[in-house]
């Protein structure tokens, strides 16, 4: 990745973060922490990795993307808006009656969404189905799925992980936004029991190729988000929940919290401060 390209993507991430916080404030509801931690992942996917065409959202040969952590919808909508799927202005309709931008992604409402999600732990199974379908059709469509580390506590994730490896899906990449913070707390209290710290080994044990990267490094993400003909790939992206705004980082209350006018101003000031 060239320095210029990196700077472009990083600028998009800063703009995306601001839009996420503004959109949630405008709607009076929504999730902030997860979209901020996943911003580099989403921007890298939509601007560097996915073979998609916003002008042809139903193009059969497009790569598919499943946002398994559906509550990060604002992050996805924001990046899709920046990519040209919808006007940036439309983000103001998020969560409103009649909006294409439903609280959780609804593929029947917004073209360009490849799957509806919201109930956690289900997206990877869908991605497995898409990847299997692509293999059967021989189309070369690649499938990417973004999971939260918290939802990896769901059993279905591991049903899907097992099936993906068994089917030898060489066109599937799962990326885990490993921000370490679920909505409230992890099961169990001892650090060793927190699934997040162990995800790489878990996917490896299920027969996946595992790549651990800095989830806020667009260059590293672009290198890692590549399928392997040998089978499914899991990218464990080390991230920070609420990344980019100092008072939101690593604070679980920002999982879903609406910024006050003063907080928004501070956030914007931080995001727009020269690096």
């Amino acid at each position: 990745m060239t320095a210029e390209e990196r700077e472009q993507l990083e600028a998009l991430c800063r703009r995306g973060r601001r839009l996420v916080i503004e959109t949630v404030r405008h709607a009076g509801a929504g999730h902030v922490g997860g979209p901020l931690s996943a911003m580099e992942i989403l921007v890298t996917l939509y601007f560097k990795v996915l073979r998609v065409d916003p002008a042809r959202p139903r193009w059969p040969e497009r790569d598919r993307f499943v946002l398994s952590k559906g509550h990060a919808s604002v992050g996805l909508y924001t990046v899709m808006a920046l990519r040209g799927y919808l006007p940036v202005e439309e983000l103001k309709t998020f969560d409103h009656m009649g909006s294409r931008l439903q609280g959780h992604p609804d593929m029947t409402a917004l073209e360009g969404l490849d799957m509806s999600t919201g109930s956690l732990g289900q997206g990877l199974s869908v991605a497995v189905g898409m990847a299997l379908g692509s293999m059967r059709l021989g189309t070369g469509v690649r499938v990417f799925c973004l999971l939260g580390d918290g939802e990896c506590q769901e059993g279905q994730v591991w049903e899907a992980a097992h099936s993906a490896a068994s089917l030898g899906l060489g066109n599937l990449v799962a990326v885990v936004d490993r921000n370490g913070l679920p909505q409230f707390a992890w099961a169990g209290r001892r650090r060793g029991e927190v699934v997040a710290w162990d995800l790489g080994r878990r996917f490896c044990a299920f027969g996946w190729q595992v790549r651990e990267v800095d989830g806020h490094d667009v260059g590293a993400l672009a290198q890692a988000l590549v399928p392997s003909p040998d089978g499914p790939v899991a990218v464990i992206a080390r991230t920070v929940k609420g990344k980019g705004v100092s008072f939101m980082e690593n604070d679980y209350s920002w999982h879903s919290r609406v910024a006050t006018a003063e907080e928004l101003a501070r956030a914007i000031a931080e995001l727009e401060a020269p690096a």
Partner: protein
Amino acid sequence: MSESQRVVFGQTMVELARAHPDFVLLDGDLANSTRADILAQEEPGAFVELGIAEQNLIGVAAGLATMGFRPWVSSFAVFLVNRDLDQLRMLVAQNRLPVRLAGAYSGLMTGFTGKTHQSVEDLAVMRVIPSMTVLCPADAAEAAAAIRWAHEAPGPVYVRLCRDAVADLPPVPEPYDPGRGRWLLRGSMGTMISTGVQSTRTLEAARLLGEMGYDLGVLHLPAVKPLPEEEVLEAARLGPVWTVEEHSVIGGLGGAVAEIVSREHPQRVLRIGIEDTYGASGDNESLLEHFALTPRRVAERVRRSFPWDPGRIEVGREARRHDP
């Protein structure tokens, strides 16, 4: 009596696999029970084994459906309906994806497996899901017709299938149309409305009732959603209605019929089925006897619940009085 619905299911899967490039079947390690193994044997390329992981099964089916396939998912009805409810709701029904659910081993006749494996609530649960079509074929021939129809239908479809062979109804009218109820018998004193494999037993119950002087019609419904309303209301206009199903009396056929009758043509609806309880292990005859769904027991239940003295009804023949 011909083949069981499960054998017909396996055979029809082979037929569909050969006719439709968008066909694929996903199995959850039950193919030799559900008889999807017939497909695995005959058309292995159309058969995908996903192991004992039913939640994943539905997710994979949803993903395949977005890629242009019309996937069939084969498992026991209890697992599809209960374990997979969230996946069906969010991934399949909310997106109106063409996933076909073959609910094997529905009802009581599950080969001695007991209440864990007997789906007595699947119709109620599937029926409440928006966009879901719920088919309940009566016999082997109707099962084949329903499965063929389901493959081409829009949106998700649940097909309730029975493990064991049952007596055949008269041939399915061509073309198969789940939106139309089938009058198996016309009666002047009311109608028994039935669905699924119970319909043959209900028809036999009507014959027994006839011998006792109760002239009742039998209406078979090939689907409980959408409900064949025209025939149901025709029955309601004729007189009282008994619904008879191998399913809970709550929310299934009886619930569906009561909902439409109470709205369009208020009439007495008496629901016969499994009385808000679970099944048990046992042979089929003992189970049907215990849950009062044999023709004789259904006839008794209808007779005891008869809302008026049939002796006062003109039935065009010598009227007999029922027991006090």
